[in-house]
C-alpha cells in the first residue's frame, strides 16, 4: 500500500519508501497498559464477527 498520505505529512515526512514519525517517544508498557490491551483484545474478539453482518 502507498505510504504517501498527504494528511500525515505534518507529523510524518516520507523518504520515498517509508514514513517518519517525528518527535515520538515511547514509554515502557506497564500493568495498566497491559490491562488496557487485554481488554482491547477481548472486546475485539467479541465484536469482530459484526464486521460482515448484512444490516
Amino acid at each position: 500500500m502507498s505510504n504517501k498520505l498527504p494528511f500525515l505529512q505534518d507529523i510524518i515526512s516520507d523518504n520515498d519508501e517509508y514514513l517518519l514519525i517525528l518527535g515520538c517517544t515511547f514509554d515502557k508498557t506497564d500493568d495498566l497498559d497491559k490491562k488496557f490491551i487485554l481488554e482491547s483484545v477481548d472486546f475485539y474478539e467479541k465484536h469482530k464477527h459484526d464486521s460482515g453482518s448484512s444490516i
Partner: protein
Amino acid sequence: MTLAHPFNPDKLKFVIYSAKNHQLPNLNFAQSNGEDPLRVQEFYEKFRAGKQLDNELVYVLRYEEEWIGFFSVIFTILSKGDVRTPERRVIDANGTLRGLLIHKIGIDQKYRCFGIGKYILLFCIGLGKSQGNDTQVKIIIFETTRSLAEKIYHPKYKFRYVVKDKKKLVWVYKKIC
C-alpha cells in the same frame, strides 16, 4: 440524549462499510460549538456518496437499530526519523514499525458522552493485535484535538501526543506491544 436503558457496549456493532449494502442517514459530527476542525463531516459525506477511498477501511457503528458513527483505518509502515525511543524493541531491525492509523473517527452528536470513543479504540487495538506475527501492529496513531488529548486520551488511557503546527490539533499514539 437519554437512552431508554443504560448504554450497553455489547450492543455496539462494528460493520465494514459497503456503499452497495449500506444506506447511511444524515448524521452530525460537528463539535457542540458547531466547529469541525478534523473535517469529519466532509469525510463522512464523501464516502457516503460512494467516493472511493484509497487503502482505507471504513467501519460504521450501529447501536440497537441506529447508525451512530464510523471510523476508518489504514495499516501503514512507519520508520524512525529523529525519534528518541528509550525502548528500541518497538522499532524493527530495519528501522521500521507497522502501525495502524485511525484516520477519522466520527460519533453522532446525539451519542456523545457514552464513552463510545473508548470502544472504538479498544476495537482498533484489538484489530492491530489480531494481526499475525509478521504483520504485527506496534503502534496506534490518530489525530484529535489537543483538548481531548489532554482531558481524555493521555490521562485516562496513557496515549502520548505530538502537537501539530496549528496547536489545536495533535497526533495521539500508543505503543501496543
